[in-house]
């Protein structure tokens, strides 16, 4: 692999925002294809941190600084990516009604972006209708629902039913502290993951 790609990867892993931006710029000047930079350096870096996070060898602070560096790199890269090249798919994410917690959803957003998806983050405490409208507007490949509380988790089923009423084949992933694989199955979610990094892997699997 080109040295510059390895350098970008290392800088993202280290959370070096300025360095990442600079190296992505240099890689583009050297003539490397933007898509190659994204896949071989940037997504590879997030995969590296994510895997260590899944093994409890890296913790949320490491994940957050890597995502911040990746974000900086993407700012340089995005204008150079051709239309249709801008990601592995579109994810629309939000936290269900009654739930004001954001960190879980935000980590999923970071990991999804790190896996090359475009993400529209709808925010927190969203009524079912807001998810339906966002689904119709953005036509995402996957809709992601988050909840931290077992009381609010129950709104996930309402959202799934409402979205499937307009698109029976809608792919909808669920996650959050109280959610389990069994619960996801019970409410007919298309996918579930126990942490943010595995959510990104699951999204890739669903769209493969």
């Amino acid at each position: 692999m080109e040295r510059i790609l390895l350098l970008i990867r290392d800088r993202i892993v280290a959370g070096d925002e300025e360095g990442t931006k600079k190296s992505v710029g240099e890689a583009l000047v050297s003539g490397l294809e933007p898509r190659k930079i994204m896949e071989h350096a940037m997504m590879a870096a997030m995969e590296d941190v994510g895997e260590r996070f899944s093994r409890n060898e890296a913790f949320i602070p490491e994940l957050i600084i890597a995502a911040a560096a990746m974000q900086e790199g993407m700012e340089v890269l995005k204008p150079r990516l051709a239309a249709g090249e801008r990601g592995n798919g579109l994810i629309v994410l939000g936290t269900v009604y009654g739930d004001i917690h954001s960190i879980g959803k935000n980590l999923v957003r970071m990991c999804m972006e790190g896996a090359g998806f475009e993400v529209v983050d709808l925010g927190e405490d969203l009524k079912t209708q807001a998810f339906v409208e966002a689904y119709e507007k953005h036509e995402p490949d996957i809709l992601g629902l988050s909840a931290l509380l077992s009381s609010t988790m129950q709104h996930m089923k309402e959202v799934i039913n409402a979205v499937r009423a307009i698109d029976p084949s809608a792919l909808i992933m669920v996650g959050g502290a109280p959610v389990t694989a069994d619960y996801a199955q019970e409410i007919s979610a298309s996918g579930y993951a126990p942490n943010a990094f595995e959510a990104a892997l699951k999204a890739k699997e669903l769209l493969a």
Partner: protein
Amino acid sequence: MTGRERMFEAFARREPDRVPVWEMAFNEESIIKLGAFFTDDLPPMKFAQQMTTEEKIKLLSTLFTVVRQLELDGITSIAILETETVDDDHVRDGWGRIMRVSEEGEATAVAGPVSGPSDLKGLKPYHPQQSELLMLMAAKGNFGDEIAQVMVQPGPFRESWMLLGSMEKLLYFYMKDPAFVHDLARLATDFILEITDMSADLGADIVALDGDLAFSQTTLMSPAQYEEFILPYHKEITQRAHERDLLIFKHSDGNMAPILDGIVEAGFDGFHPVQPQCMDIGEVKERYGDRLCILGNIDCTYLLPFGSEEEVDRTVRETISKAAPGGGYVVSSSNSIHPGCKPENYIAMVKAARRYGEYPIEARA
């Protein structure tokens, strides 16, 4: 034995006459639904922040009725910080933090007065007012020394991230600016120490140090980061609590296993709530039962909201048999009695604790 004595015995890891029962928190809706079992004189169903003073007093008196009728061994008070209304969903507190209010749980900061190190100079530390501990005064006035007075206090991690308005931002600065993280923790800890002194002055017995440090999989920060950024402040707080004759335990949801040694080292007397989805209470009892009182573990994610009364009864029996022998266990839910919990199931939990909690208790395989 009084409820207070029962709680003290459990914290001393000795066997009281029976396993104490206590709860960290009840939401407004839960208080009103449970209150309906015992009285018709109930406040309207709305957030405390939206209640009139008369309605708030009625809510508090409903909570006292529930605690008395169910013969709980302790009551939990919270500091209700003065706030001003920003809009229907948000209030601003004395630090200048914008808090989002929620019917499903405690208010959470969505914006803070600090966004980076340069904002610290202009920040005026907020000093708690005794009137903000009105709930403790009312609980002490109502129950005296009959039951344990537990006071919830914010922890340095939570207070620090609330000053930034976002947990992610604080965790980002863990890597980018350690000195700034310490400055925030210093501000937070000084505030917490003031509340600790006030709690002691007003007759609290036990401090519950709030603020989650973990999620289902593991801790939010590495054990090394806990040691660097939180442990020294935890030590200061437990030391002050002990100087003021208060017992103190750490509350955190999630899998706290990676830093439980640190919780012991910090000087905490107990740990709550041993969330059953991610920690095994038998293992926690075996490893830490000689150093920490264990509180909680009765699942409020699935069991109390969706389970049957029979399932609740069985779970309480099994949990007591694992955690209570030798003392050092207090029955409570795995977080709080939130609006999703069936009130019948909570009552079944308390009754089961009485049925199976008489000492001596035999450990069951």
